[in-house]
C-alpha cells in the first residue's frame, strides 16, 4: 500500500456513482410501479404499456454502473492488477469525473419517475396516448444521458 490515497478516491467515486444511480432508479421504479399496479388492478389489459413506463426510470442505475465499470477498468481493478501507485491527482480526477453522474443520476431518476407516474395516470384514462406518455417521460432522461456522457468523456480522457 502506497502512502497516497489515489486509488481509494477513484474507487470511492465509482462506488458512489454506482450506488446513487442504483438508489435513484430503485426509488423511481418503485414509484412508477406503485402507480402501474394500481392502474393494472382496474385495467389488466394495459400491463404491457404500463411496464414500459415503469421501467423507464431504471436506466439511471445502469448508467451509474457503466461509469463505475469504466473507472474500474481504467484503474486496472477489473484486470486484477489495481494501480496501487496511482497518484493523488489522478485519483481525485477520477472522483471528479464521477460527479456529474453522482449528482444528476439519482435526481433525474426521481423526477423521471414522477413524470412516469403522470404518464401512467394518463394511459389509464387514454390507453392510446401511451406513445406520447413514453416520449414525455423519456425527455427527462436526456440530462442523465448528458451527465453520463460528460462522465465518460472525463474518465476516458484522464
Amino acid at each position, binding site marked *: 500500500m502506497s502512502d497516497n490515497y489515489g486509488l481509494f478516491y477513484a474507487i470511492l467515486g465509482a462506488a458512489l456513482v454506482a450506488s446513487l444511480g442504483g438508489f435513484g432508479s430503485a426509488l423511481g421504479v418503485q414509484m412508477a410501479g406503485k402507480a402501474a399496479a394500481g392502474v393494472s388492478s382496474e385495467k389488466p389489459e394495459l400491463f404491457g404499456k404500463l411496464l414500459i413506463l415503469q421501467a423507464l426510470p431504471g436506466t439511471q442505475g445502469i448508467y451509474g454502473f457503466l461509469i463505475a465499470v469504466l473507472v474500474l477498468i481504467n484503474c486496472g481493478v477489473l484486470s486484477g492488477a489495481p494501480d496501487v501507485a496511482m497518484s493523488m491527482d489522478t485519483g481525485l480526477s477520477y472522483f471528479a469525473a464521477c460527479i456529474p453522474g453522482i449528482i444528476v443520476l439519482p435526481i433525474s431518476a426521481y423526477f423521471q419517475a414522477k413524470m412516469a407516474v403522470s404518464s401512467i395516470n394518463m394511459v389509464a384514462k387514454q390507453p392510446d396516448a401511451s406513445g406520447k406518455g413514453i416520449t414525455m417521460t423519456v425527455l427527462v432522461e436526456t440530462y442523465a444521458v448528458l451527465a453520463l456522457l460528460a462522465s*465518460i468523456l472525463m474518465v476516458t480522457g484522464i
Partner: protein
Amino acid sequence: MIVPMKKLKLVALKEDKERLLVSLQRYGEVMFTKCNEDINTDIDASKEEALLQRAEKSLLLIRKFKEKQKGLRNQIEVDYDEFKTNNPMQEDLLKTIEKTDEEINTLKQENITLQEKLAFFLPWASLEIMLSDLSTPHAAIIHTGMLEIRNSEAFMDLIVKYGGEFQIISILGYSQAIVYACYEDDDTEIKEQTKNLGFTEVILPSEKKYVSEIILKLQNSITNNHQQIETLELSLAEYANETDKIKLFADQAATTIMRKKALIQETIDTVYLEGWVRSDRLQRLQKSITEVTDIYDFELVDPEQSEMPPTVLKNNKFVDAFESVTDMFSKPNPYEVDPNPVMSVWYWIIFGMMMGDAGYGVLMLVVVGLMLKKMKPKGNMRRLFLVIFYGSFSTIIWGILFGSYFGFTFFPILLEPINEPLKMLLVSLILGGCHLICGLMVKAYHNFRDRHYLPILSDSVSWILLLIGVGLLFLPSTAEIGKWMAISGAAIIVLFAGWKQKNPIARIGIGLYSLYGATSYLGDILSYSRILALAMSSAVLGMVMNMLAAMLATNIIGYFFAAIVFVIGHVFNLAMGLLSAYVHTSRLQYIEFFGKFYEGGGIPFQPLTLQLKHIDMVNDNINQ
C-alpha cells in the same frame, strides 16, 4: 404513401337498405360520416347489445373451465356464409349456460344458509333428549343457553342452591353450551339471576328429533349440494368445448350492432348515406353495391379543404411494420407526406446501433422469428414484433462492425465502443446530423409538392448548408469550403426566413430570430449522443456478465454456475437493451426527426366492417 380518399354519396331504395348495409359491411370499404345534422344517431340496438353482453358473460364463465391448451392458441376461422347466418342453436346454448350458472349460484347460496344452520346446532350435538321434550311440561322447566366459562362456578352454585340440575353440553371457545332444569316456581327468580351472570338463552326449535339427527341431515344436504355443484360445473366445462361457437355469436352480435348504428338517412322510399372511401379500391366499392341492387345512384367527390378525411397508408411490408412507431406519436394527416418510408430506414439503422451486438441480433432473430410464426400476433402487436425482427438484422450488422459477440470482442471493423468512446460519439453525432438533414429534405419535398418554392430555400437548403458547413469546419482540408457553406446558409436564413413579411426590417428581424434556432439544432445533434450511451451500456453490461461467468468457471461445478450466470445475465441485458433501444430510437424519431417537418393529427380509417374481436379470420371469396 398516403392513399387519397374520396367522399361517397349514395342513394338507394329503402327496401334494399338492409341488404345494402350487409354488403357494404362485408366488403368493409366505407367509413360512414354524418351526412346531415338531424340524422338519427340514437338507434335502438338494445336487443343485440343484451345478447352481446350475455355472450361475453358466458365466455367469461366457461373460460375458467377451459382446459389449458398445450402451447399456443389455435386460430378461429369461419367462412363468411357461416358468419352471416344466425344459428338459433347458439342462443339456446347461451340459455343453457346461463341456467347452469344460475343453478350453481342458487346451490351455493343454499349451502351458505345450511352452513349457518349447522353452526347453530353443532354445540348441541351431544344433547341426549329429543328437542320436543325440552318444552314438554314436567314439574321442571328446562332452559338451554350459552354461558361464559369464567362464570360457570357461580352458575353451578346458583342452580344447586335452588335444587336444580344442569349439564354442560359442549365448550365453544370462551363459552359453553349449558342446559339446566329447575322447579317451575323458582323459574323467574333463577332466570333473573342467571341473566346477571351473562347466561344467554338459546331457543332451540321444538322438533321431534335429536340434534345429532338434524346435524346429520344438514351435513348430508351440504355434501349433496356440493356434489350437484360439481356435476353442474362439469357440464359447464363441457360447454367450454363450444367456446368457439359463443365467440362467433358474440362477434355476430357486435357486427349487427355496428350495422344497425350506421349513420344512414331515410326518407319515405329511399336511403341516403355519405362516407369516406379509398380511391384505390373503387372497383371493390362498386361491386359491393351492384351485388345487391341495380337501382342506386352514387357520386364520388374529392374532400373539401375544410374536411379532414381519415388517413390510410399503403406501404411495403418493411415500412408497414414501422407505421406502428409513427402511430404511437400521431397518425400523419392526409395532406402531408407520409414520413414512414424514410423514418423506417432510420429507425432500423439507429435501433441496430443501440443494440450493437451480433450475438444479441442472432438471438432476437431466432426468438422473435419463432414467436411470429407460432403465436401469430395480430395488429399492432404483430408490427412491434416485426420491428424487432427487422431490427435484428441491423443489430447483427452493427455488431459485426463493432466486433461485439455476446460481450466478447473479435476484430472490430469500424471501432470498439468501449475503448474508443470519442470515435463512437463522433459517429453517433454525424449519423444524427444526417438524420436531421434527411428530415429537412422531407420538408423540402413536401414544399416542392405543394409548389411552395421559396420555403425550400429558406427552411431546408439554408439549414442543410449550415449543418454541413459547420461539420466540414472540423476537418482541416475542407475547413475553407465549410466556412463559406456555413456563411451562405446563415445568410439565406437571415434574408429569406421571413419571406412572408413585406416590410424589409421585419423580414430581417424574423430572419435573425430564425438563425437563433441554431441553438436547438445544437441540442438536437447532441441528443444523438444517447446512441453512444446505450451502445456502451449494453456492451459494458455484457462484458461484466462474461467476467462474472469467467470468475466462477474454475472447476466443474463452477462451469455449471458460470453457464447459468452467462445465460441469465445476457438475457437480462438483452431485455433491458431492447426496451431502451425501442424507446430511445422512438424518441429520436419523434422529437429530433419529426420536429423538423412532421405535423400529424390524422384520424384512423374505421370503415363499417365485420367486428372481429374473438374470431381471427372470416374466409370470404371476395377477398381473393
